[in-house]
């Protein structure tokens, strides 16, 4: 097979998505969503801090997992190739943007068992909330 260029890859990506798109019936999806919206209570604009207090155990567990994962990764990096420089994130926290903070949190495989009905992801948090979460996870 010859070398692929950008257009080839983009064409593949479109075709992969087309298959899924064909399997979705917009009318059925709309009916399902409207039924859920009718039956679900209206969204409450709660500050994320209040959510934390609703699930303190979950956050502590998440912080412990994050510390373990981060520690494991650092140790693994040192063992696999001690010549490679290891960058710790803590000193750079104040310099990170919201996007970069989200990426860092994502990379820590954050797995808090939050309530199922919680419609909040990392990208919903403000920059200060992300910083607070990362500080919590660092213990």
């Amino acid at each position, binding site marked *: *097979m010859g*070398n*692929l260029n*950008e257009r*080839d*890859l*983009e*064409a*593949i*990506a*479109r*075709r*992969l*998505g*087309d*298959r*899924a*798109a064909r*399997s*979705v*019936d*917009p*009318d*059925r*999806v*709309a009916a*399902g*969503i*409207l039924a*859920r*919206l009718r039956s*679900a209570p*209206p*969204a409450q*604009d709660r500050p994320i801090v209040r959510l934390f207090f609703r699930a303190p155990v979950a956050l502590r567990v998440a912080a412990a997992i994050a510390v373990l994962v981060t520690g494991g990764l650092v140790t693994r990096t040192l063992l696999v190739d001690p010549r490679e420089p290891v960058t710790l994130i803590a000193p750079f926290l104040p310099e990170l*943007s*919201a*996007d970069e903070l*989200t*990426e860092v949190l*994502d990379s820590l495989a954050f*797995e808090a068992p939050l309530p199922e009905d919680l*419609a909040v*992801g*990392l*990208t*919903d948090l403000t920059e200060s909330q992300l910083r607070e979460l990362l500080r919590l996870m660092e213990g």
Partner: protein
Amino acid sequence: MPDGSVSDGELIDRWRRGDELAAAELIKRHATAVARFLGASGGGDDVEDLVQEAFFRAFRSIARFRGGSSFRTWVMTIASNALKDLKRRARRGDVLSLEDRDVADTSADPYGETVSRDAVRRVEAELGRLPRLQREVFLLRAQEGLEYDEIARALGTTPGAARVHYHHAVQRLKRVAEA
């Protein structure tokens, strides 16, 4: 019933005032594109459920939509969150692991005549493994044809960073496709 001449912004305003038909119209306009995005992101057989979840979350938190990007792009970023949540639950064993599923059958894919089926499968699998920002930037550009400016606004990054993410995604996909 709203028609195609009504803007997304107006439909959103109507939904905020409780007009369900406006919400239905928004879903019908954008569900296919969101499904396409999720399908290429590794949504597997869960695409329709994920599309529902994404729009449900979007309508429940519509107050947070500031119009920095298009409504469609905003829903796609929410869909990506929903997919990530699903994968997280799969890792915990709550649902069937997405990684355990076979990649989709491409035997009827005419593109396979010029690009090997195996390469397509490798690209599909690798897309699911790309870092999230790389995958989102690549798909928003490949599928939606968005400019880096809008991609950056939607994903909360800069156009320059979006360009870098796209470049890394392309390089990585090329590597696995040509392996």
